[in-house]
C-alpha cells in the first residue's frame, strides 16, 4: 500500500490566520461599544457599509486575479480592515466616504501589492489618509459626545444622517454638532490645538466642556476600552508587547519632556495617551503584522517611531491627530529596520567567527 505525502512537521498548532483575525475583532468590541455609547450608532453603521464594500471588492479582485476568494475572505483580514476604517472615520460622515475608503484600502493598498501579506502599508490607515486629504470637510466633522449634544440621536437618526446628511428629525450635521450652549463642538484635540494657536494655555483651553479633568469627555473611555481589548490580545498571545510598549513609551517620553519644559503650551502625557485614536492605534493598528517589522528589536523601534511621530504631528503639525500618518511613515521604514535588527543566529557569536576562521586555516 502507498500513502499520501506531507512534509514534516505533521503536528500543527490549531490557530489559523482566520482565528487570529477574528480574535482581533472580538478584542475590538469593547472599544466599538463605548464609541457607540458616546458618539451614536455611526461607527456600527459604517462598519456594516465597510464590511460589505470590502468583501465585494476583495472577491471581485481575487476573481480577476483568478484566485480562490473564499479562502481569502474566510481569513477575515479584510474584515479587520473594515473595522479599522469604520471606527476611524467620523460617525456622521456620509456613506460614500466609507465606500471610497474601503475600495481604496482593499483594491489599491492591499490587492495591487499582491494581497494579504504583501502590502507595504496598513490598508485602513492609507485609506484614512487618502480620505482625510481628499475630503477634509467630511473627515473632520466629528460628532460630539451624546451627553453634550443638544439632540441625542437614535439609530434611525444616525442611519439617516449617514445616507442623507440630515437626521430623521430633519436636523443637519451642523445642528447636531452644536453644543447645548449653542457652540459648534470640536474634538478635544482639535479644541486644544485651536485654543493654543489663539494664545491660550493648556489649562485655559481645558475649561471648555469637551474636557473633563484634563481629559476629553468620552474619549478617555473609548481609549480605555481599546486598552482593555489590547491587553486581552496580549494575554491571548495574538500580538506581542513590543510595538505597544514602544509606542506608549515613544509618546510618553516626548510629551513628558515637553510637559516638564512648559506645561502651559504642552499637554500632559496622560492627555496624549487617552486622546484621539491612540489606544486603538497602539493595539489594533500598529500591531498589524503584515506592515510592521518582524524582529523584536525592530518592533520596539517601530513603536517608538510611531509614538514620536504622533506627538510631533499633534503638537507641531497641521492635523489634530496623527496615528495614520505616523503609522504610514514607519511602514516605510520597515524593510530597513528589519534589515538592521536581525537577531544573531545560533552559532554566530563574534567569538565563533574566530573559531571558524582558525578552523578554516587549520583545514587549509
Amino acid at each position, binding site marked *: 500500500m*502507498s500513502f499520501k505525502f*506531507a512534509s514534516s*512537521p505533521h*503536528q*500543527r498548532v490549531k490557530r489559523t490566520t482566520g482565528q487570529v483575525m477574528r480574535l482581533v475583532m472580538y478584542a475590538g468590541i469593547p472599544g466599538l461599544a463605548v464609541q457607540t455609547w458616546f458618539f451614536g450608532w455611526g461607527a456600527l453603521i459604517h462598519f456594516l457599509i465597510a464590511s460589505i464594500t470590502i468583501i465585494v471588492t476583495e472577491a471581485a479582485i481575487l476573481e480577476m486575479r483568478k484566485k480562490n476568494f473564499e479562502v481569502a475572505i474566510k481569513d477575515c483580514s479584510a474584515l479587520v480592515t473594515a473595522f479599522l476604517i469604520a471606527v476611524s472615520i467620523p460617525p456622521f460622515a456620509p456613506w460614500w466616504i466609507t465606500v471610497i475608503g474601503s475600495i481604496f484600502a482593499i483594491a489599491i493598498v492591499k490587492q495591487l501589492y499582491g494581497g494579504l*501579506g504583501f502590502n507595504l502599508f496598513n490598508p485602513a490607515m492609507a485609506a484614512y489618509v487618502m480620505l482625510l486629504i481628499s475630503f477634509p470637510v467630511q473627515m473632520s466633522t466629528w460628532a460630539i459626545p451624546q451627553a453634550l449634544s443638544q439632540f441625542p440621536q437614535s439609530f434611525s437618526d444616525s442611519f439617516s444622517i449617514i445616507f442623507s446628511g440630515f437626521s430623521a428629525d430633519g436636523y443637519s450635521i451642523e445642528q447636531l454638532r452644536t453644543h447645548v450652549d449653542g457652540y459648534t463642538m470640536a474634538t478635544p484635540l482639535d479644541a486644544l490645538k485651536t485654543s493654543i494657536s489663539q494664545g491660550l494655555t493648556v489649562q485655559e483651553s481645558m475649561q471648555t466642556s469637551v474636557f473633563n479633568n484634563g481629559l476629553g469627555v468620552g474619549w478617555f473611555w473609548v481609549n480605555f476600552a481599546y486598552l482593555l481589548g489590547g491587553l486581552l490580545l496580549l494575554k491571548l498571545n495574538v500580538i506581542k508587547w513590543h510595538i505597544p510598549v514602544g509606542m506608549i513609551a515613544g509618546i510618553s517620553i516626548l510629551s513628558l519632556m515637553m510637559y516638564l519644559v512648559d506645561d502651559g503650551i504642552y499637554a500632559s502625557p496622560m492627555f496624549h495617551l487617552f486622546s484621539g485614536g491612540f489606544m486603538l492605534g497602539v493595539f489594533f493598528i500598529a500591531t498589524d503584522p*503584515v506592515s510592521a517589522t518582524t524582529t523584536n528589536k525592530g518592533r520596539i523601534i517601530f513603536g517608538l517611531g510611531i509614538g514620536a511621530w504622533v506627538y510631533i504631528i499633534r503638537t507641531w503639525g497641521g492635523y489634530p491627530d496623527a496615528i495614520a500618518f505616523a503609522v504610514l511613515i514607519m511602514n516605510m521604514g520597515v524593510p530597513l529596520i528589519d534589515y538592521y535588527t536581525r537577531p544573531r543566529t545560533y552559532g554566530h557569536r563574534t567569538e565563533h567567527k574566530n573559531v*571558524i576562521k582558525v578552523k578554516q586555516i587549520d583545514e587549509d
Partner: protein
Amino acid sequence: MYSDYDHILQRLNQGRLWDFHGGVHPPQLKSLSNKKAIETITMPKTLHVMAKQHIGVEGSLLVKEGDRVLKGQPLTHSTNPFSVPVHAPTSGYVRHIGPHVSAHPSGLPELAVEISTDEFETWAPLEPILDYQQKPKSKIVEAICNAGISGMGGAGFPTHIKSSPKKNVEFLIINGVECEPYITSDDRLMREHAWQIRQGIDILVHLLSPKLVIIAIEDNKPEAIEAMQVACQENAKYRVVSIPTKYPAGGEKQLIQILTNREVPGNGLPIDVGVIMQNVGTCFAIADAIFTGTPLIRRVVTLTGQAFKRPQNVWAPIGTPLSHLLEVGHYKAHKQRDRKLIMGGPMMGFETINDDVPVVKITNCILAPSASEIQAPSAEQPCIRCSACADACPASLLPQQLFWHSQAKEYEKAQEQNLFDCIECGACAYVCPSEIPLVHYYRVAKADIRTQEQEKAQADKARLRFEARKERLEREQKEREEKHAKAAAARKKAMSEKGNDAKDKIAAALARAKAKKQGNTAAPTSQESAQPSNASVDSPQAQQINSDSKQTETSKQDKVAAAIARAKAKRAAAKEAATKETSETAKPEQAAATATSKTDNSAVDDKSDSDKSNSDKTATETPPAKVQSSKQEKVSIAIAKAKAKREAIKKAQQSQSADSENAESAQTDKPQVDTQPNENKPGENQPVDSKQEQPQTDGSSEEKPDPTAKQKAIAAAIAKAKAKKLAKANASENESAKTQSSTEQDNKAPETASKKAPTGQQGEKLTAAQIRKQKVEAAVAKAREQNRIAKLKRAEKAAKKSSSSAADKDEN
C-alpha cells in the same frame, strides 16, 4: 559569553540550567507507548538490510546472492574512515542484492541486501573485548566501528569518529532527552537497561577522558531519570540532569546550549566547544559491541499512534519491513481511510511512501496516526509576517525571511539569512497560522543550493582546463613563430652568399635543418593541440584530473611516428622524381634517399628525421631564393618541381595506402585515429597536408595540353614561391593576432592570407598575359584555401569531440 568549565560546573551544582531561544510545546502523547516493556518480536521472513544507514560512505558488499549468512556477519566492508559496515541481523540466505525502497522521505531505491531468514538464528563467531581497559584505545575504536555503530539519535553519524576526537573533551553529554512527542524508545531503554547504558558510557569515558559526563533527560521521564541515577550513582563524574520539557531540547546544539551555554559555531562541530554528545541508544550498542561482540543488528522502535491497537516498544531487527511491524502492533488497517505511516516523530519524521520501507539504524519510531489524530495539511495561505515562526526558532533565524527568499529562489539572500543553520526541527511550521510547510521550502532551497554549488565546481574545473589550454596554445604559437624567424634568418644568410652555388645551397639547407631541428623539439607539444584531453596535463592546477595522461602520451607518440613516416615516404617519392630531371638538387636528394631507407625506424630516430624533412624542404624552398638571381633557372626549377610533384602524387597515392597500414600498425592503442590521416589530425598533419595538397592541385592544372600548361605551371611555381616567402614574413608579423578561439586557425591564416597578397604584388611586375594566368592561379589558390579551411573545421570538430570525451573521462 563563553562559559568556562568551572562556571558551568557551579551552575550544574546549583541545579541551574540555561535556556535556548524559541522552542515549542507540542502535546507529548508519550503515555501511549511508554507503559509496556520492550518486546522481542518474531523474526520476519525477509529482511532488507540497506547497505548504507549512516552519514558518510557506503562500503562494498562482502556477500553475493545465494550466500548463507550468519547472525552478526558483516555484509559490507570499507576502508574509508567515514564508513561503518552493516551486518546480517539473523542467519539465512542472501536472496537478492539490489535497489530497495529506502528509509528516506523520497523513498528512492538504494542498494539493499535481501535476506531470507531461517529459524536457527545461528551466530557468527563474536569477539568480545572484556578487558577493554587493558587494550589500546585504537583497538576499541576499531571494534566500535566494526560493530557498525552510528549515532542512533537520528543523524546516524559514525560513532567511532566521535569516539576518537583530536581535541580535548570537557563534557561528554549523553542524550536521553527524547524531546519529540510520541517517541518512547530511549525512555524504555533507560528504564530497562540503565546498567548497560552506563557500561557503554564507561567505555566512552575510557576513550574520551572527559572532565564531566552529563546524562540529560527531559523531566517528563521521571522513571528513566531515576533508573539512570541509580546506575550512575557510584561515579561522581557522572551527572544525571533533568531538563525542562521543550521541543527541540534534544537537538544536539540546543542541548549543548541548555547545559553549557556554549554554542556550536556555525560550521563547526560540538568538539569545537569541548563537547561530545552520544545518544543513550548508542551507548547501549557500544556496550553490546565491546562486552559481547554483538554488532548493531537490532534497535528499539516505538510503535505508536492511535491506529495501532497495541502501541508499544519492540526490539526490531535492522531491515525489518514496516509491514511486519504493523502486524506486531496490530495496525487497524480497515479503520484508516487515508493511510499514513510516519517514520520518526511527528515533528521531524517523514511519511513513508509504502510499508516495504525497512527499519534502519536511526529508525526510532513508527507513528501510525488515525485520521483525527494528525490531519492532512490544509491549503497553504499567504504569510502574514506574524513572525510566530521567528519566536519558535531554536536557531534564532527569521523563518519568514528564509521562506520569502526560498520561495523566490533568491538563494544568495537566503544564505545571507543563514539558511544552512536551520536544523529543520519544524518548530516554525508547527506554529505557522498560515500552515505554510516552511521546512519543506528550506529543504528544497538547500538541495537547490547544493546542486548549484556542485555545478559551479564543475564549471570551475572546466574553466581551469580551458585556461591552461589557451595558455599552452599561445606558448606554442610563439615557439612556432620563433622557429620561423630563425629559418628565415638562415635563408637570408644563405642568400647573401653565392646563391647559384649548389654547395652554398646545401649549406643553407643545413642551416635551416638545424633551425628546424630546434623547432622540432617543440613538435610533440604542438601535436597536443589536436588532443584537448591533454590540455590539462600542462596546467599544474588540473594535473590531478588527468589520470590517463600517460596513456594518451604514448598513443600520441605513436601517432607522431606514424605521421612522420607518412611524410617521409611522400617526400622520398617526390625526390626520386626530382633526381631524374635536376642535377642541382642531387645532393639533398641523396640525403633524401637515405631518408627513405630509414622510414621504417622513423619512430626511433627523430633527429635524422627532422634533418631529412628539412633537406627535403630545400628542394621546394630553394627556388624562391634563386628567383631574384636568375629567371631562367627559376623557370627550369619550377618545371622540375612541377614534374616532381606530379609524380609525387602518383607515388603518394600508392604510398599513402601503404602508410595508412603502417600507421595503423603503429597506432594499435588508438584504433579510431586515422585511416584517413589527413582529416583527423589537424595540428600535427599541417605540414603533410600542405605538401600533399599542393601537388594535387598543381597536377590537375598540368594535365592540360603542353605549352599553356607549362606556362601555367611556371606561374604557379612563382606564385607559390612568393607566397611562401611572404608567409614567413607574415608569420612573424602575425604574432599579435592570437585570440584563443582562433589560434588553430591562425596557424593557417598567415599562409592563406599571404597567398592572396602575392597575387596582387605580382600583377605589377608581370605582363597582361601573365596576369590572366595569375588569375587562374589565384582561383586555384582560393580553391585550395577553401579546401584547407574545410579541413581545419573538420579537424576542430574532431578535436572538440575528443576533448569532450576526455572531459567526461575526467568526471569519472
